[in-house]
């Protein structure tokens, strides 16, 4: 069974707070995992395409429809991997086959090669709430010694 017949779907729920920006990038705050994710326009489009269970072809078509044909299949696969690592989507494997590891590795390699092209490179950046708190605490830099 080819890799592309897997389906992807959003891991959504009441714990997610989503802010869409005017450039179609998205910030997702997951109160359950206490993480904040920044999805650039490419990653955000891929995530949105996963609103229902969608195959890679369907996701690719949605991305091309919105962002144009310059976005490569490798870039979409890279976005899917990033979104899985961030626990923002889940993958449903067909029951009767395993995903060949070599295919994934090949895709990853192709994706890395394509990173040289800035357009369409997906980016998922994650900030934990603990780190955000640390930034906030550090910003209060009053030289105070309390009694």
């Amino acid at each position: 069974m080819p890799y592309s017949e897997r389906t992807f779907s959003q891991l959504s729920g009441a714990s997610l707070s989503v802010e869409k920006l005017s450039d179609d990038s998205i910030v997702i705050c997951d109160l359950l995992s206490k993480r904040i994710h920044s999805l650039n326009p490419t990653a955000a489009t891929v995530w949105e395409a996963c609103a229902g269970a969608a195959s890679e072809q369907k996701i690719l078509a949605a991305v091309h429809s919105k962002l144009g044909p310059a976005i490569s299949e490798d870039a979409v696969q890279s976005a899917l991997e990033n979104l899985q690592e961030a626990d923002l989507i889940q993958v449903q494997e067909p029951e009767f086959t395993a995903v060949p590891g070599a295919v994934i590795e090949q895709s990853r390699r192709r994706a890395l090669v394509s990173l040289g092209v800035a357009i369409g490179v997906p980016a998922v950046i994650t900030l934990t709430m603990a780190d955000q708190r640390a930034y906030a605490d550090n910003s209060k830099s009053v030289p105070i010694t309390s009694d």
Partner: protein
Amino acid sequence: MPDTRHRFSFSFRASGLNIRVATDSAALTYSLDRYLLPWLPRVAKSSPKGSEVVYSVDPCGNDGCFKIQRGARTIAHGIAANLLFTALQQILDDLLIARLGERAAVHAGVAVYQGHAILLPGSSGSGKTTLVRELISRGARYSSDEFAVLDSDGLVHPWPRALMIRNACQIQEPLLATELGAKLQREAARVKLIVLLRYVPGATFDVQPLAGSETMIKLLQNTPHVLAEKPGMLGTLAAACRTALSFEGVRGAAGEAAEALIGLCM
């Protein structure tokens, strides 16, 4: 409890609080009154609305240092005279920033050029004041050298505290923007530019666009608020990012950077 120990004081009202600063030195009180949160109108000390918070400043020991008390509680001591103003200003900033309600603050220099707000997020010592000073010398209005106070409509409200300028001896001294000949921004302004700059000596101004979502992460790294305690802040920051162009990069000379920022703004 009324403070009866000090002979000199001044009061102002902010965030539902009556705040009084009291000392036993006329000169010190004059200086603090002149430079501390200067945009807030002073009021009679017996304002009937709300509770009164009294900050008192007194010498501690014989080494020329000061202590700051809130009511009867010492909150800072051993403060050198040249750091006293900064310490008190930060204490009051923290107090008021924590009471902003639905608004959210970001550590950022803010200048408003022809109605467009330019936000320069960065931590203390990152050169915000220097850049803001260059912008106001080119006709921008002064909004703040430390805080961008954002609302859910994507507007930034002024927080025009005294600029901390290094003198010839490299000691920071407060200076009002009006003393530099600048005009103050008195109304909220739409955020047009958010630019994160790193100072590299000798570098040429060079920035790249940032996605709105990346800008939000940068703002979350530069706010004194904890998102877990103020979740509504996400929408507030998003409102600013929706209207703004965002960039990140390096700068060298502040004057060249100010010219480039104005160019990006127009």
